[in-house]
């Protein structure tokens, strides 16, 4: 029992990180019909920004993390929107999808060539110690990761549902035409979602890299997990992405322990197939109809 509990908490910690990336996925889809297949690389890269700041410039860890988030917002948020999404979206959704796949490859190979092909150790934000709670050994670091990720998600939810800008962003996602007529600055709202996505990806990167180490190829698994989490959650709801992320994280961890670590990578895919077969609208999603 204690072992299962340990595994579930570790799974929730990774799941909360997947959820951060999955929320970004759904936000981009909702406001600008962007399916970002470079999302995994967006989570891989900020750790390298922090490593460059620490190892090349000798900046302290906290400052490097801050710089990594800011650089991510600038490059993976604003520049990504202006240089890749805006010109490609005019050509349709498919060219944009292909462009994001290409961008993912470029970022992955770029991290390898410019930094290193080796997995890099990354400092823990919380001390990597075990604490015993009611006889269950828990990792302080995992609890910390879970708490930070949940706090970020809660803050985002509050922002979206309780602020004027949040409501304008929802309006932009639900009905851009009318939102524009009512005077909502739709373009600015879309830019905000790209900035939020980049910030979430950077948070996820700083939280997951101590566990997985910073490696150029991390994006493959992270991107897949986030994509599956978004689909399982319903793709058109932030709450769904959270539920999907946590579910993928826990199942992923239990399967690694009880089935085989070798099959771990396939767990999100199996989950994806099952959901597409039996519940295509996802956990919390709505069935969508499209007029053509």
């Amino acid at each position, binding site marked *: 029992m204690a072992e299962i509990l340990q595994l579930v908490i570790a799974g929730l910690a990774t799941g909360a990180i997947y959820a951060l990336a999955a929320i970004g996925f759904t936000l981009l889809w909702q406001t600008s019909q962007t399916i970002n297949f470079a999302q995994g690389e967006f989570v891989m890269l900020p750790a390298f920004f922090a490593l460059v700041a620490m190892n090349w410039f000798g900046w302290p860890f906290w400052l490097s993390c801050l710089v990594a988030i800011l650089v991510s917002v600038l490059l993976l948020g604003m520049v990504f929107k202006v240089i890749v999404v805006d010109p490609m979206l005019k050509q349709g959704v498919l060219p944009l999808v292909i462009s994001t796949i290409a961008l993912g490859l470029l970022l992955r190979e770029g991290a390898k060539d410019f930094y290193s092909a080796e997995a890099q150790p990354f400092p823990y934000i919380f001390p990597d110690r075990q604490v015993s709670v009611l006889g269950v050994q828990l990792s302080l670091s995992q609890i910390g990761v879970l708490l930070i990720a949940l706090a970020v998600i809660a803050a985002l939810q509050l922002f979206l549902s309780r602020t*004027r800008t949040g409501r304008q962003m929802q309006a932009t996602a*639900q009905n851009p035409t009318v939102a524009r007529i009512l005077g909502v600055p739709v373009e600015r709202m879309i830019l905000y979602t790209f900035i939020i996505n980049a910030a979430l990806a950077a948070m996820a990167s700083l939280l997951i890299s101590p566990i997985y180490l910073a490696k150029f190829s991390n994006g493959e698994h992270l991107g897949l997990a986030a994509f599956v989490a978004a689909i399982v959650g319903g793709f058109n709801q932030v709450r769904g992405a959270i539920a999907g992320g946590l579910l993928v994280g826990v199942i992923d961890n239990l399967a690694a322990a009880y089935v085989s670590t070798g099959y771990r990578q396939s767990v999100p895919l199996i989950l994806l197939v099952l959901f597409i077969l039996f519940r295509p609208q996802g956990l919390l999603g709505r069935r969508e109809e499209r007029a053509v």
Partner: protein
Amino acid sequence: MTSVLDVKNLSRAFGGLQAVRDVSFEVQEGEILGIIGPNGSGKSTLFNCILGQLVPDEGEVRVDGQVVTGLRPSELNRRGVSRTFQLLQVFPQLSVRENLILAGQEHRGSRLRRLFGPRDAGLTPDANRMIDFFRLGHLAEEKAGGLSYGQQKLLDAAMAFMAGPRLVLLDEPAGGVNLTMLASLKERLQAINAETRATFVVIEHNMEFVMSLCTRILVLAEGRLIAAGTPGEIRSNPDVIEAYLGH
């Protein structure tokens, strides 16, 4: 009387098709003007030219004496021109009250206040008044997407009044609404017209609805204005009968 909307010699073509030809009319303050005409007569094009969604080839649109031709819809909205939609256009995942607040909030406060000011922009009392007025009280907290079609039409109309408009353009308000809801919609529109002195321009296919709602009616056929008058005059106008029934 002041004319709130003044359309002069408006024309718009799509390729070789002249959708609106040299249409001129004025709408006085507080008036409910109906625009009718067979399918393809140019009603929607005329509407879209007035609302800034299409730029006319020729002619001019004035609101309260100011030229507004070619202004963007959001700018017109800021100047007191609201609209309702033929197809439903509410925000399905927001509650009825939030839809109303959203419809009014862009008119409130400076840019800084719009970003950091109170969430309801001080509009909750206005939204509640509109909810009571359109008798949506029991639905205030419901998501708009869960409302019936007729209720969503009422919400759409209520949203058009949140910004305290001078002029409201209603695009087929009766379309798809059942008879009971239709009577209530008409009654509420007449009441809010009497209360706010806002000016209405209505495009509508439902003759019964137009004839009983509007004080004056214009008839379009093949892009031209062929008749104008009270509902009684329009009913007995031979040109109108011919346009609708053919030779």
